[in-house]
């Protein structure tokens, strides 16, 4: 019994089997729009393969069974997507649930594998789970939109978004340059740079720290929905006003993190510097900045997501006729929802990449920190 519940992916596998059984039973009712027999066959095969995998056969078998399991799922998903007619009943949704649970079980199986350190597989391994998760999510979205016949003007299907994405690369690129390269990056650099410099000043004068941080936290709470139009009024329609919004958004998170980081040295470490009679700069460079790095990177990561959103939001309140925020708000009005989602996709990819960039750099710079050495 323990085995049934406690091994990785066990209850997902159980759920998968139940959902398939349900689809079978309901499908026997025989209405037209039930999952086709190929779908059911593939799903049953998936249940069997997963069962075989969970019996922990020798290594080669495990790899083969895992691949077979995945392929069965993909086949079932594809076949189900192909036969959508729009009048699906409970059996259809059971099959959808089965595929979703199957994906989850697959992720559980893969997550449990501990690849050998240093191998190529070890590098790819962390990507598998999120990718499978994402693909499953997209598939459920696609299936649901098609099956429920959700109007295109409310929520387009991922495939439509993808097509629109591929067809509009030029426009997307122009918008990306306007919003990310001009607005986001400049604002991010100015905001974070200023925050770090300011943190050093504030850190030096306790009076400033005690006065500025509370006031600064208060000012940081001014919602950008209100400040963005004001910045457009002050700095014009083009990217400077977007950069200003970004600066306003990232400045205080970065400041707070840096100040906290600079204060994060241990008493003994500071005492050591005192016994060396080290100067302020020496202490800063050799002790406080290195010790602050985990916090600084924390701030940079938070600001990376804030910055892009800030620039996009700012464009909602006035812009030249390009930019991601401009496009999104304009295309909503034209009911070109696929274009809207294509831009949202760009934003998500870009934001994640920007975040990932800082996360990678963090790994290199703060390799010494316990949080980077093990979980």
């Amino acid at each position, binding site marked *: 019994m323990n085995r049934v519940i406690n091994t990785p992916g066990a209850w997902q596998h159980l759920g998968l089997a139940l959902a398939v059984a349900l689809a079978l039973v309901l499908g026997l009712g025989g209405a037209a729009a039930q999952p086709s027999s190929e779908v059911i066959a593939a799903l049953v095969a998936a249940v069997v393969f997963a069962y075989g995998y969970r019996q922990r056969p020798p290594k080669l078998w495990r790899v083969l069974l895992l691949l077979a399991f995945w392929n069965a799922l993909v086949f079932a998903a594809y076949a189900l997507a192909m036969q959508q007619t729009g009048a699906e009943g409970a059996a259809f949704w059971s099959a959808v649930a089965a595929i979703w649970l199957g994906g989850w079980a697959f992720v559980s199986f893969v997550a449990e594998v501990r690849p050998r350190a240093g191998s190529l597989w070890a590098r790819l391994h962390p990507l598998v789970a999120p990718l499978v998760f994402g693909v499953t999510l997209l598939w459920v979205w696609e299936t649901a939109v098609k099956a429920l016949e959700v109007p295109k003007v409310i929520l387009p299907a991922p495939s439509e978004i993808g097509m629109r994405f591929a067809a509009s690369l030029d426009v997307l690129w122009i918008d990306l340059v306007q919003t990310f390269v001009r607005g986001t990056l400049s604002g991010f650099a100015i905001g974070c740079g200023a925050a770090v410099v300011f943190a050093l000043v504030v850190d030096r004068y306790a009076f400033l720290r005690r006065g500025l941080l509370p006031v600064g936290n208060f000012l940081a709470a001014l919602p950008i929905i209100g400040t963005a139009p004001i910045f457009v009024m002050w700095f014009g329609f083009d990217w400077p006003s977007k950069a200003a919004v970004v600066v306003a958004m990232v400045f205080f998170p970065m400041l707070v993190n840096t100040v906290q980081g600079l204060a994060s040295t241990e008493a003994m470490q500071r*005492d050591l510097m005192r016994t*060396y009679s080290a100067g302020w700069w020496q202490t800063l460079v050799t002790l406080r900045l290195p010790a602050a790095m985990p916090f600084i990177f924390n701030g940079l990561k938070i600001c990376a997501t804030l910055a892009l959103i800030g620039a996009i939001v700012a464009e909602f309140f006035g812009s030249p006729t390009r930019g991601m925020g401009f496009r999104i708000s304009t295309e909503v009005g034209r009911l070109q929802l696929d274009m809207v989602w294509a831009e949202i996709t760009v934003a998500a990819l870009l934001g994640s990449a920007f975040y990932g960039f800082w996360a990678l750099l963090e790994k290199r710079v703060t390799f010494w920190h316990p949080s980077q050495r093990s979980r």
Partner: protein
Amino acid sequence: MTQTPTSSVIQAQDLGLTFQTNDGPVHALKDVTLTINKGEFVSFIGPSGCGKTTFLRTIADLEQPTAGTLTVNGMSPSEARKARAYGYVFQAAGLYPWRTIGGNIKLPLEIMGFSKAEQKERCARVLELVELAGFEKKFPWQLSGGMQQRASIARALAFDADILLMDEPFGALDEIVRDRLNEELLKLWARTEKTIGFVTHSIPEAVYLSTKIVVMSPRPGRITDIIESPLPKERPLDIRDSQQFIDIAHRVREGLRAGYDEAAE
């Protein structure tokens, strides 16, 4: 009395230090009067919380006394600190995790402006001394606790301060390594004429190393006995079996016990 020097390096007169805490004042030190001469090796021993660390920190200008006077080399502790008179080994290793062992040892050398070549040479020398040659490129967390402690001793030795203050430096080491490092420390001290202040919980260690043993007692932290060691400067390990040694150890133990019983009331 085998000690050579006579000029006093550290002079405390009626020194007192009271911490203000929420629960009221804590008298960490009270009426401490002590003279340490140049080239002396002084051990501090006493029950936990009696103020040994606090006294060492006060000498190094890491705490400010609240009563009495304290001079170091005729200056205030703060001036002495700015003249870089101290090497300090803390109770815990306190290495910077983002620097290698070599980098940690070079840290004070960088700050004090030694040349690159000199840094390298000194680093190699002290690593040798604490038996860590070959670990220069490792990071602190890759070493066992004892090794880290030794690295921190090496760091304090690297820049040849005149006054070496060591707070239980060998606490985390096993007996054998400890014996060996005791010997090394004695040799170093004999060679360089440094003045050393040394906190320990081990009576044999205190007796073996010191020219002067200061026994302290808590609440309030104060000195209950000062024992000048009659042992010769040259001390083989088996001196610990000599009667003289056992007698001193006995006196220290009695002093400790007395302070303890008193505090228990």
